[in-house]
């Protein structure tokens, strides 16, 4: 199995607060990998670091074996840095989120971020903008009609796949909550990624919806040959779907492995339930 995403010793520090501490993990091709942990453990921060929204304070992230992000404590952080591995990395390589998306990493957001003035269809078409072959001039004067038509066809297909075809001309924000989540995923898929990051896709869903979502995520993996890295609180979903699980608490990796291994780990239980005072 090929290693796609490689996070090495990443530390994220905001001011004096270390949100992610020396985290290393890998995601392999075709896998569904989950990142779990109690609230405030730093899960979304990891996603933000991978997608370039935040600059890691220290550490390196590689995609398909190629370094995409690297940083070391410098400037103000030089003094403030409270993490480990100081001096391990010496280069600074920063990419904006759009370039990372172009490389093939797409994401959804924990708090849904659809384009509210656009229809469902436009939301998906917009995501295809990143793969355009037209330029400003040709696009303006409709010289890219073929591409536009192809994109439309592709978008329709995608919407059919996520069950939103009937709603394609509705405003994105007029959709019910669950469908908005689906649209977020469809939009992420439209950027033609190889790695899909899902940030709490089942948040706010009832058990039945969650079950449907589980099937849906599998379906995506199989039909689009996607690698999926997700954050989730619904343990049923996580245990059901994941090939491997990483657990973090207070920004530190405390355990990793298959669902069975993780479920049995005492540190994980402690992290979620709190350490009993008797011990």
């Amino acid at each position, binding site marked *: 199995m090929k290693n796609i995403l490689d996070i090495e010793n990443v530390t994220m520090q905001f001011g004096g607060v270390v949100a992610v501490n020396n985290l290393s993990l890998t995601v392999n091709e075709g896998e569904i990998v989950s990142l779990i942990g109690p609230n405030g453990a730093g899960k979304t921060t990891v996603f933000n670091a991978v997608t370039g*929204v935040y600059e890691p304070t220290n550490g390196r992230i590689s995609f398909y074996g190629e370094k995409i992000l690297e940083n070391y404590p410098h400037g103000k952080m030089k003094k403030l840095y409270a993490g480990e591995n100081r001096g391990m990395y010496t280069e600074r390589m920063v990419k904006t989120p*759009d370039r990372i998306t172009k490389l093939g990493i797409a994401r959804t957001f924990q708090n849904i971020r659809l384009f509210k003035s656009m229809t469902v269809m*436009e939301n998906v078409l*917009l995501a*295809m903008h990143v793969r355009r072959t037209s330029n400003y001039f040709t696009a303006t004067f409709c010289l890219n009609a073929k591409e536009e038509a192809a*994109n439309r066809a592709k978008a329709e297909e995608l919407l059919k796949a996520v069950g939103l075809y009937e709603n394609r001309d509705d405003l994105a924000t007029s959709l019910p909550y669950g469908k908005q989540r689906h649209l977020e995923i469809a939009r992420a898929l439209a950027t033609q990624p190889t790695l899909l990051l899902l940030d709490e896709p089942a948040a706010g869903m009832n058990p039945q919806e969650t079950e449907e979502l589980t099937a849906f995520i599998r379906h995506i993996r199989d039909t689009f040959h996607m690698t999926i890295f997700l954050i989730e609180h619904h343990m049923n979903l996580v245990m059901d779907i994941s090939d491997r699980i990483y657990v973090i608490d207070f920004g530190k990796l405390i355990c990793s492995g298959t669902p069975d291994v993780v479920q049995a780990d005492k540190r994980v239980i402690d992290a979620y339930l709190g350490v009993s005072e008797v011990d």
Partner: protein
Amino acid sequence: MKKNNTSKSRLSLYCNLGALLLAFILVLVIDATHNPTDMLVKVLQKVCVYAVVAVSMNLLNGFTGLFSLGQAGFMLLGAYTCAIFIIPDEVRGQVYGYIEGGSIVHVRLPLIVAILLGGLVAALFAFLIGLPVLKLKSDYLAIATLGFAEIVRTIVTWEKLGPVTNGSFPLSKLNTFRKALEGTPFEKFSLVTPYFLIAGICIAVIVLIIRSTYGRAFKAIRDDEIAAEAMGINLAHHKRLSFVTSSFFAGIGGALFAIFQASVSAAPFTSAMTYEILLIVVIGGIGSITGSVLGSFLFIASSEWWLRGLDSGKFLGISSPVFRNGFRLVVFSVIIMIFVLFFRKGIMGTKEFDVVKIGGFFKKLFTETVPGWLKKIKHKEAADQ
């Protein structure tokens, strides 16, 4: 379902094009029947100028969500660039009379080329100033662009630039469409028509941009920058595109403004001018192209024409001592405040003017609403019985 949809949109397209054609014919008729100094002609010319600028500002503020207040500065750049190259040779020396050594520009360009050049220069400056400024967040961007416009206005009047810009003295005796078309078969149609055509083309191009995949990207940036970036949209690149495009058309608007006046000086291009344009955009509806056009017409026509009576003591046949100098502007600003506070979405909101929809509105009025009323009345009668 799908087929129906596209045929419907096609119908709407044709109808709207038809309406546009009708407007064009109306303009031709106006040109043929009016004097060059009729108020209607002057107002329509100015409306065309302002429409281009308002739409360009809407592209930036309404569709890309970048709150920029530099429009007057870019207009000024366009106006000056255009004006410098359309001064007839025989009066050039006279126009630059106060400058030692006279003008150093000895080229004279056809109007269209000069207008385009005006747009290009504005776009170039937009590119340069955009590099640092576009990184700023909303209101900081507004104030930085406002500052830029003020800087440009000062630099143009700098006496060291006198041989180019004529310093603080107006560039006058500019070539106009009327002079340029004199003696050609189009002579009769040289009043509003050229303004209408150029404005029409500019606005059409902006509409095409907005409808293209780039337009979608602009809207995405307006809706949610972070999500847009996560979907692979290069924020810096697209913001710059929008900014430069908007400035290009503002520059063209400025060039038209110069031709409209047949003279330019830096003084009118103040932040007050930008505010005026912004208010036009707001009245028309932020995010609606036709709204901006309609807004320009209403703004110019009422402030410079219909409400003029408020200043001179007699309005709609009523005389009152309240109607004295300045009252027009007070009434006008109150109207604007009403719009800002109570009709926040402007006349059009984010919708576009659509002949079919208006037809549909009437149809609905007569096929549904009126029968509905009748039905209600009937029901009531039935109930009464």
